[in-house]
């Protein structure tokens, strides 16, 4: 599925309609093997964020970066990044998807 600007790739169960951030093999709600790619709006609320200053070896080249957990308006939580490290710190702040980098959603304050 080609990426639409501002949308996040998730999974939708074609049997029961449940959404999940994925990746997953079977639907966590009804256990059907019927999950297919879906795109939902990248708009949501900032649940929390942190700045990783000691990255694991695989991310060392990036230096410090901000990881965020966002509750999308579609009702699911995703773990991604914030594009700025000084997010302002206010939990519940509105965010939108800035870009999708290697499958990781990058959010910015709306």
């Amino acid at each position, binding site marked *: 599925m080609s990426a639409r600007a501002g949308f996040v790739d998730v999974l939708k169960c074609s049997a029961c309609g449940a959404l999940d*951030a*994925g*990746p997953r093999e079977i639907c966590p709600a009804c256990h059907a093997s019927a999950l297919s790619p879906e795109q939902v709006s990248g708009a949501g609320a900032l*649940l*929390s*964020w*942190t*700045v*990783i*200053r*000691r*990255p*694991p*070896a*695989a*991310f*060392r080249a*990036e230096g410090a*970066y901000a*990881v965020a*957990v966002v509750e999308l308006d579609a009702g*699911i*939580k*995703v*773990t*991604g*990044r914030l594009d700025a490290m000084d997010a302002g*710190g206010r*939990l519940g702040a509105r965010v939108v998807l800035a870009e999708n980098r*290697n*499958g*990781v959603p990058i959010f910015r304050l709306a």
Partner: protein
Amino acid sequence: MRDVAITGIGSTLFGKHEGRGLESLAVEAANAALRNAGVSRKEIGALYLGNFIAGPLSGQEVLAGIVADELGLENIPCTKVEGACASGGIAFRHAVLAVSSGQCDAALVVGVEKMTHASGGQVTQALNCAMDNRSDGPSGLTFPGLFGLAWRIHAEKYGTTRDEVSSVVIKNKANGLKNPLAQLGAELSFDTIRQSQSIADPIQLYDCCPVSDGAAAIVVVAKDRAKGAPDLPIDVLASVQTRGSPRIAGHRDIVSFDATVKAAEFAYRAAGLSPKDIDLVELHDCFSMAEIIDSEDLGLVPRGMGAKWAAEGRTRVGGDIPINPSGGLLAKGHPVGATGVGQLYEAVLQLRGIHANQVKDAGIAMTHNLGGSGIACTVSILKRPDA
């Protein structure tokens, strides 16, 4: 199911064991536990070994069999168990099950980890094997980062402050100074903690447990075989294991772990006890914020009050509920696979009344070992026989 007792304990120092391998540490602890229990090697019917990252950091697996061979045990079943930082607690539970079910009359539990020979980046990368690396891992999240996320929510919901969180660190580091096995006991000030390096905001250096080497071991036997043991046998009232979500998205919020809440509920029920009966707890304080969340999830401190109780001195030795009199992971150290077994070691010393940081009249002790992003948990409750 038969009643089970602990008759033997052993441990290495937790810290940096330069030039020593996993096998050497495991054998030292296991030999000490066998001697303490006064059992012959022929009596040990099963071995369970907790280890997490010997594969990535030392290139060595099949440790359970290697350790049994070194110890000169019989051709018994030897099983390595892995549940990230809960590996040691899970190993203990399986040994308890092997004995309580009648599969054998005595079993040996060993937990071991060797980490300090690797670089910080390698250790962080290896520990990240405990995440669901299809979901949270690709973001570059780390475990300090997970508790940084939790901290902001705890602060927002309950008004928890930097200095209240520091009270946990100051208490555990001071407890560690009294524990001869501890790696990093210290007398710390609020200022020193506040000025330490940022690791994963708001987590700073002193909020994190150190990287450690170490091993611990326990001998469990059928209770009717415990009579005549050289040292006081300690009853196992409950040894419970649960799972939680491997992913942040699967947790209702990030300031409580379902695996702990459920394990505590099952353990209290199995033991016929409630939180007020617990005289001390050794819980999984891999980070300062983890102790706060754990103490609330275990029902030992009211929800939201974990940091405030520490600040008021209610969780130190002599307080309402002494938490981590050993110094915990923050001060004693966190050789990951050994940690859960090390907590039981500390609890047994307390119940025998011979701990270097003794809780007065300790009769009932709890241990809590948590793995990954809350994916695996064990809770055990131990009792002095006359308590």
